Each structure stands twice: as C-alpha cells, then as structure tokens.
C-alpha cells in the first residue's frame, strides 16, 4: 500500500483548484498538502475515499475540499427556481464537534467568498430552524447519526436528499465500533438508494484494519462480494514524547486511584502551562480532582469535566479551557474526540490507558500541530499497570493501533431502521433486504433473519400470533409494507437512536438535615439510579468535586447536602470501564517473558517480577500460568490469562461450574484485567497432581458449548443487555424527562419480560440479539475463545505452599465483588435474623 509521506505542500505539482481556492491559499502563504489534492482528484473521479491521518494534518479541510470545489462551480439558483436539496452531509459522533466544524469551515468559505449556507442540525436545534431547513435546505448540513436517521424517516426524505453529492464521516474509527455505527451504516445504505452515485469520504485516525472502514464507505455486493473505497494514508508527524512517571513513592499492589503519586502529578502541573489529566472512569475523575484540591497550596485553577455533570457546568469549563484560564482539567472520555483545545502542553494519563489507540487519541490533545512532538506522562495506579503503561508506550512508538473488532450488525438496530423506513413511506421487503445487504455490517444477513425482523416490527414476531389486529406495519395488496397509523411514526421519533443510558437521577443540592422533605435546590448533574439506590440517607459520596451526603430520593431527583470531606464513599459508576485491549495484553505477556525488557521498568516492578521468578515461575508469552496454594482455610487457584476483566469474568463463571462438577467445591472468584482468582474448599493443587482434575480438561474449549448455554440462560447479566436491545428495537419505551412518573406506572419491567420470553420463546429474535450483544460485549466470548485456543497444551501449573508475588494484586481484590443469586438470598436470611445459618462466603 502506498503511503503519502509528504507532509509539506505539494511542491512542483500542478494544482488543479478553482481560482478562489488558489487565491485563498496564496493569501495565507499556504499550499494545499499532497493528501488533500490526492483526495480531491480521486473524489472528483467519482471514488469514495477513506483518509487516515493523524491529528493536525488538515484532515477536515481535505474532507471538505471535494465538496467545496464542486459547490464553487455549481450554477447559482435563479430567483423563482425551486430550492435545491442538501448537497453535502457531514456526520460527526459529537454535537460539539459539528458546532466546532461549522466555525472552522465558515472562515475559509467566507474568505473565499463562496456564499454557502453551512448549518448544524442536532438535538439542540430549535423546531423553527428544523422546519426552515426542510423547506430551504442548506448546501452543507452538519449533523449526527441520530439526526440523520430521523431525517431519512420522514416522508419528504427523498426530496430532501435528491441533490446530495457528498457525505463526510468524521472520526469514522470511533463511529463504526458501536450500534450507533450500525444505525449509521443503514442510513448510509438508504442515502445510496436515493443517490446511487453518492460519494462518501471517511476521515479516521490510524486503525489496525483500514479495510474494515473501506468496506463501510461503499455499497457491498448482494451476494457477499466485498467492495472497498479508495484509501489515502498520511504518516504520523513528530513522535510524541511519552514517559512513565518515575515515582519516588511506593507503588501500590492494587487499586485504581494513583493516590500515591498526587504530589508528583501536582508538580508536573506546576511546570506546564495547561495540563489535561485523563482517567478511565468518572469515579476516578472525582477522586483525582479531590486529591489535587487537597494539595493545591498555590490555588491553581483546576477544573473537572465528565459526562454526568450538568451541561452548563461543562460548557463553563470548556470555555475557561478555550480562554486558557485553566492550569489543569481532570477529564474522562467526554473530551476524547477531536475537539480543539487551547494551549494544552501536557497530557497526563492517570491509570493505565487500556488500549494503545485510546492513548494515541488522547495524546493528540496535547500540542495540536503535526510538526511539534506532543508531551505526555503516564501515571500507573498499580504494578500491573506499570507493565501495561510500558507496553502502551512501546506500542505508541511502534505506531501500533488497535480498535475493537467490528461485529455483525445488531438485529435490534435493524428493527429500528425497518420501522423508520416505513415511517418515510411504503417499502418492498425484497428491495429493502438488498439495500440492507449493501451496508457493510449487514452484508452477511440471511433473508430469513431479515424477515423475522420485519415480523418483529409488524406484530412482535411471536409464535403465538395474537397481535395481528394491532400490527404497526402491514403488507398491503400491492405487496408493499405500510405503517398502519401515524402515531407509530411519532412513537418512532421519540424512541429513535441507539444510546440507552442507565436510568439517571438529577442530583440537587439542599441544606443539610432536610431529609426526605427536601425540595428544589440547584442541579449539580445526573447520577445512575442504581448507584443511589444502593445508598441509604446519610451515606456520603463524591460528585461534582464535592463530598455530598444523601438526604433523600423523590421521583427523578436525589437530594444531597454538603458533607465533611473525610470519609466519602466513591461513586462506583457502571460506565467507562474498558477492558485491556488484545494488543496490549500481548505486549504485557511478552514483556513479562523477556527479562531483558525489564530495564525500562521501575526497580520496584522489575524486583517484583524477579521475586516471582524465584518463588514460582514466569510463563512464556504463549503459555498460561496456573498457580495453586492454600491460604487461611481456603484453597486458591490463580490463572494469568491477561485477557481483560470481561473475558476473565466469563471464564470465572464457567470454570467454577466445572470445578463444582469435579467436586472441588469452589466458593467464588474474582477477575481483574490480568488475573482470575478462584477459591474453594478442596485443595485444587493436590487434585491436579492426583489427576482428579486436569488443566487441559478444565480449560477445554468445549466450555463455550453447553456450559456457556446453560450459564447464559441463568445469568442476570443478560437482563441488562436485554433491556438495551428491547429499547433499541422499540419494545420498551424510553424514559423521557418529565414523563417519568406516568412512565414508571405503565412500564413492565424488562426483567419480567425477559423471564417470560426466555421460558416461552427462547429463540425469539430479541433474545438472539441479546445473546449476540452479550457474547461480543459484556462476556467477551470471542476473546475468551481465542485465548482457550491459544493456550491449548501450553498450560503450566505450579503448586505452591503460599501466595506468589504475582498473585498479590488479585488477592487484594477479593471481597470487592458484588453479590448475585444465592448470595442475595444469604443477605435476606441474614436480615431475617439468621446470620449464623448463612454466612457469606
């Protein structure tokens, strides 16, 4: 593959650009870059293109150049002539990014005197402007995937898009990995049906598998033929300077707070103009922010930014950031994507970055120009994270990138799209099926599954066909499917989109001692209902940088008062916990196996590995180490697969079932990103030596067969996934602010629906969608399967008489796991005054 290395202007090349563009470049003393001209030329020749370039390479301008030059050459609309449809669509994953682009695009367009209407359409666009946009479409419309889906579901969609020439997809690498991406792919297929010659332009950061994105940008063949868009790759600019914080303090074994390093982080902030501190979860953000303020003797302006905070608070922080009036900002992934920030000269990553591309993306934030290296420090929170940070660092220097593997298009998303299509007008199943096959994620969809999805949309798709009379869409005499009542279109609009958030409560600040009678109070932000429900009034937690005490809950609000900052309980948000990426896991395993690479590690960590080598063994990169040892009145089995917490959890569930059958009497397990620890009553080490257990049998791939099926059917994890799938597919109404009260009374709990469906129609399409989601997300079954295949015949066992150095971190995690199933009954029994009969294990 050819890579454009030339960052500099395209010297000596004939520059084929309309006059206003040449003048504009000349006036600024700039020349278009080679990749910009290449993209223009190939796009003008009718190709759809993928541009992969690092931050600061002029990606946005490159993406818009084909559209802008075409628009510059288009004859003006004469007075009295009808309004033309939208010419160019720009899709971004973030509203804020669309707004940002509008600003950045307006300047050159105005300076060239092109006189083009460039408008945004997001959830915040007022109704009168939406209406006007429909009547008088702008030349360039900047919007989000959800808004696009809503647009194509309207009756005048074909008219609105009849002049569409270009669709530009920004941050494509982040869009394609989720259900949002599936919905967008389907919308794109619809646009191609309106405009077969539509050219798409994808803009992406570096990815491991560019071909997956290239497929995404063009129509796939109806018989599984693979089509690819064109590709232009721009090499990275100056290599970033990344270091791991060399702490003088003692590195902790476990935990995620990095509290030990606060003083050193604070010193780094003082030495730089502006620092962004990234963390992986919102609770870490809260904690870090508080720790920094505790030692902020110089009263530096330090701010907090995460998705649970009230929007106006976030906007104020963003503005302060743009004004360069902050010295540091503590942030989560809400700041991840390509929004421009002021004079950031240092990125600090607290905790391990969990994935090499995530790290690259975040470091791109520092020093937004290609020719200058950006600076970053990594602050590992525990010893395993030191290994992970070092691996990430090596990976970044190597230019290695990893993104999650793309999965097949989700069926719940397809159901939403089918209803949306019907809202726009009648459709024929044959034609829609072929159209859907053109969308890369759905290229392998069988006709049978497609028909099941249509049946689901029509009447729920149940074997017991009792809902025919209430059908939402119905096949009419001419063979087309039509929506049966306009109210279903209204319902579709209220429930469209694929982002299903956990139910949230508003956090309102009131005076202390108000208890359950609290009312009103300013809103600090939103917090997961599930978290608040685990608290009792009087409990304290960190939120919005403050220690708060819960006063009471009423309807959709929880009331809090300010509390002493001594003993806050930390919010344990469900979101934001990424598992260790496959690529980094490989790197960490290799590093452990190669002592010569330990020189780069802090001596505390290399010493720890040395000790492990003496007292147990260090596995080779392709081996799985299993240790067994007694401790207290329990026996432990510790495995080190390094496959991420999700895959380890699944493995833990399945292994304990097997151990139970083998009468090893397992009692529980705990999973971290690196390690799985199982404990039980029997001496599993001896059982292995006596041949009563075999490792090859225990870790055999066949656990992903029947054992998995049986476990899945009993698993509470699936209920959460089901709720999401059922909401996206339109079975369950979304909660809308203000309607919650009536909503809650009307709603049937998704758990109850799940139970009934599972026992009566285990093959229902929504259960199928749920299992696929779980297998690819929550349970990481694909990864577990790859791991089991990889370690086959390469498992090494060490029977120890005591805990090994490598096992210490996971042993410290024991007891932090939530209770489920049997253990819930134990809690009830305990509360019922029978503590002695059912001690928690």
């Amino acid at each position, binding site marked *: 593959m050819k890579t454009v290395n030339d960052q500099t202007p395209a010297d000596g090349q004939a520059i084929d650009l309309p006059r206003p563009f040449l003048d504009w470049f000349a006036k600024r003393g700039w020349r278009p870059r080679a990749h910009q001209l290449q993209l223009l030329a190939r796009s003008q020749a009718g190709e759809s293109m993928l541009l992969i370039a690092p931050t600061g390479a002029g990606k946005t301008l490159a993406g818009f150049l084909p559209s802008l030059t075409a628009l510059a050459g288009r004859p003006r609309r004469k007075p009295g002539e009808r309004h033309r449809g939208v010419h160019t669509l720009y899709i971004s994953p973030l509203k804020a990014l669309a707004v940002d682009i509008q600003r950045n695009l307006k300047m050159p367009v105005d300076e060239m005197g092109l006189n083009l209407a460039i408008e945004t359409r997001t959830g915040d666009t007022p109704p009168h402007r939406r209406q006007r946009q429909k009547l008088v479409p702008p030349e360039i419309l900047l919007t989000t995937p959800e808004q696009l889906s809503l647009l194509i579901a309207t009756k005048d969609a074909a008219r609105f898009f009849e002049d569409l020439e270009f669709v530009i997809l920004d941050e494509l690498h982040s869009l394609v990995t989720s259900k949002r991406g599936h919905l967008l792919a389907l919308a794109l297929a619809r646009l191609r049906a309106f405009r077969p010659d539509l050219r798409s332009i994808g803009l992406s950061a570096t990815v491991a598998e560019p071909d997956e994105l290239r497929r995404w940008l063009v129509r796939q063949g109806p018989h599984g033929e693979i089509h690819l868009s064109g590709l232009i790759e721009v090499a990275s600019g100056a290599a970033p300077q990344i270091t791991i914080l060399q702490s003088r303090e003692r590195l902790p074994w476990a935990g995620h707070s990095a509290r030990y390093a606060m003083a050193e982080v604070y010193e780094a902030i003082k030495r730089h103009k502006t620092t962004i501190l990234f963390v992986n979860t919102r609770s870490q953000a809260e904690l870090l922010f508080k720790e920094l303020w505790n030692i902020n003797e110089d009263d530096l302006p330090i701010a907090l930014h995460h998705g649970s905070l009230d929007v106006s608070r976030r906007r104020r922080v963003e503005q302060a950031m743009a004004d360069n009036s902050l010295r540091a900002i503590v942030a989560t992934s809400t700041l991840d994507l390509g929004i421009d920030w002021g004079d950031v000269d240092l990125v600090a990553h607290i905790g391990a970055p969990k994935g090499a591309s995530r790290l690259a993306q975040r470091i791109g934030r520092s020093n937004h120009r290609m020719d200058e290296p950006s600076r970053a420090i990594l602050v590992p929170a525990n010893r395993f994270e030191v290994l992970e940070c070092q691996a990430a660092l090596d990976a970044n220097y190597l230019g290695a990138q990893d993104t999650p593997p793309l999965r097949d298009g989700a069926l719940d998303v397809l159901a939403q799209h089918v209803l949306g299509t019907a809202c726009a007008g009648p459709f024929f199943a044959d034609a829609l099926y072929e159209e859907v096959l053109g969308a890369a994620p759905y290229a392998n969809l069988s006709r049978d599954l497609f028909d099941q999805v249509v049946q689901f949309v029509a009447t729920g*798709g149940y074997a017991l066909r009792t*809902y025919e009379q*209430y059908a939402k869409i119905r096949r009419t005499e001419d063979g087309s499917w039509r929506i049966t009542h306009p109210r279903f279109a209204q319902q579709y609009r209220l429930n469209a989109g694929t982002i299903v958030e956990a139910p949230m409560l508003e956090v309102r600040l009131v005076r202390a001692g108000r208890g359950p009678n609290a009312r009103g109070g300013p809103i600090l932000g939103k917090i997961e209902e599930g978290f608040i429900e685990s608290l009792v009034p009087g409990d304290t937690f960190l939120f919005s940088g403050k220690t708060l005490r819960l006063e009471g809950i009423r309807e959709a609000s929880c009331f809090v008062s300010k509390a002493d900052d001594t003993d806050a309980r930390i919010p344990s948000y469900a979101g934001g916990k990424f598992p260790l990426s496959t690529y980094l896991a490989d790197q960490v395993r290799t590093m452990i196996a190669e002592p010569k690479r330990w020189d780069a590690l802090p001596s505390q960590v290399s010493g720890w590995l040395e000790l492990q080598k003496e007292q147990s063994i260090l596995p080779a990169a392709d081996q799985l180490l299993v240790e067994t040892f007694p401790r207290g009145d329990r026996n432990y089995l510790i495995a080190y697969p390094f496959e991420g917490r999700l895959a380890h959890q699944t493995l833990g569930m399945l292994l304990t079932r097997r151990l139970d059958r083998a009468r090893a009497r397992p009692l529980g397990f705990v999973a971290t990103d690196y390690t799985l620890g199982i404990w039980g009553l029997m001496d599993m080490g001896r059982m292995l030596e006596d041949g009563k257990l075999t490792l090859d049998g225990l870790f055999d791939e066949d656990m992903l067969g029947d054992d998995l099926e049986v476990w899945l059917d009993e698993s509470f994890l699936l209920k959460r996934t089901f709720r999401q799938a059922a909401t996206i597919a339109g079975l369950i109404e979304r909660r809308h602010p203000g309607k919650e009260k009536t909503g809650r009374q009307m709603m*049937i709990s998704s758990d109850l629906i799940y139970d*009934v469906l599972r026992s009566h129609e285990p093959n229902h399409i929504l259960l199928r969608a749920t299992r696929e989601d779980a297998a690819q997300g929550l349970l990481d079954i694909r990864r577990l399967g790859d791991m089991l295949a990889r370690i086959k015949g390469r498992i090494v066992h060490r029977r120890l008489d005591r805990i090994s150095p490598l096992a210490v971190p996971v042993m410290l995690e024991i007891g932090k796991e*939530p209770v489920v199933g049997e253990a819930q009954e134990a*809690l*009830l029994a*305990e509360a019922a005054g029978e503590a002695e009969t059912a001690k*928690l294990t």
Partner: protein
Amino acid sequence: MSVAQQRQENPYGEIELAGQALVADWAGCLYWPAEACLIVSDLHLEKGSSHAVRGRFMPPYDTGVTLTNLAQRLAVWAPKRVICLGDSFHDDQAVDRLPTRYRAQLRSAMAGRDWVWIAGNHDPGAPAGLAGAAALELACGPLVFRHEPSAGTVSGEIAGHLHPAGKINRRGRSVRRRCFAGDGERLIMPSFGAFTGGLNVRDEAFDGLFEPERLCAWMLGDHRVYRIGGNDLVR
C-alpha cells in the same frame, strides 16, 4: 447449617392478623387455614396484550404464566375458597381478549371451589362470562377483604393495589423483593401477576397505613419467605 437443612425448615411466613393465623406463601399468595381459603391479589391478567393495542408487543404469555403459577399454588393448598383481591384483569376489555386456552385454564382452576372476584380499579365490573361471585368487598369473620386499603385505622383488613416491595441494605449491598406488608391490623398483599412490578413500602403511597413501630415485611425469596422488621426496610 447446610442448604439442605435450611430447605427442611418452614419455607412459609407466619402472619397474625386481628387474631387470625395466616400463612404467607413464597409465591405471593396467602392461605387462611381456619377457612381453607386462599387469597391472591393483582393478577393483572392480559396486561401484556393491553400494551399491544398501542404498538408495544409484549410477549403474549403473561396470562399463561400467572395462571400456571396459580394452579400450582392451588394444588399445594387445595383451598375450598379463593378470593381474588382486585385488579384480576388489567383492563375492561381484558376478559374479552383472553385467548381460549387461557380461559379454559382459568375455568379449570375455578372448578369445584368457591371463587370471589373483588372489584379493583382496573376491573371495577364483574368479569363477564366467568363464574364466581363478584363483590366490592368481603367481610369474613374478623377479616375484611378489599382491593384498595382504606384510610384511617382498621382492624383485620387485607388489601392489595399497592404491589408492595421491600428493600434491605446489608454489607453495602441492597436486595429488593416483593413482599407482604403488615402491622398486625392491616395486611397488604404482593401482586401475583407475571408482569407486575413492585412499589417500595417506604414510598409515600404507604404513608399512614401502618403503625410504624409494628410494620413488618415478609419478603419473597426463592422458595422461602423472609420476615424483615420495619427498621431494616429502606427506601
């Protein structure tokens, strides 16, 4: 104590109400031995199909599940009389929508016993085409059965309507289950229907219904009832 030993213990809750001994079944029904009477509340039959009318196609099996559960409990207790404490049907048209096989299932459950339909807010009228007596409320010895708990002090009232659920916090974790809620004078039944949710007994809807010091919840576990004192119940 082993799990097996626990199973041998009485899995039911013992409740005393206005001097009468009652048995709380873990499935959510109540047995009154002195009268050989079984009480169930809030069956909400055909709740699933009531959503279908508005384009929300819930699995059309909730009625079947509810009736099957009921049949099992009838087989266990073999009551002479059954009192359905209101909201037996989810709406006015629910009886008409009842599929034939479920109608048959219900008829066979009713066969050979006294059956009383107490009126609920969802089903104020007597179910058309079904046997059994219909009543707004029913007094029987020291006990009175009605759908909605009455305001003020009562003695021996058994009601439904509110779908009580209890929640406890232990070791930093919480567990929430449907429950019977009572104070010795009034007892509110959990809902029995497959698609019915629960309302926390600490919700304001329960304000003034119980003597706070005597409040008790019999929470429904897996095949076991747990008696939880009012002090342990949280919002």
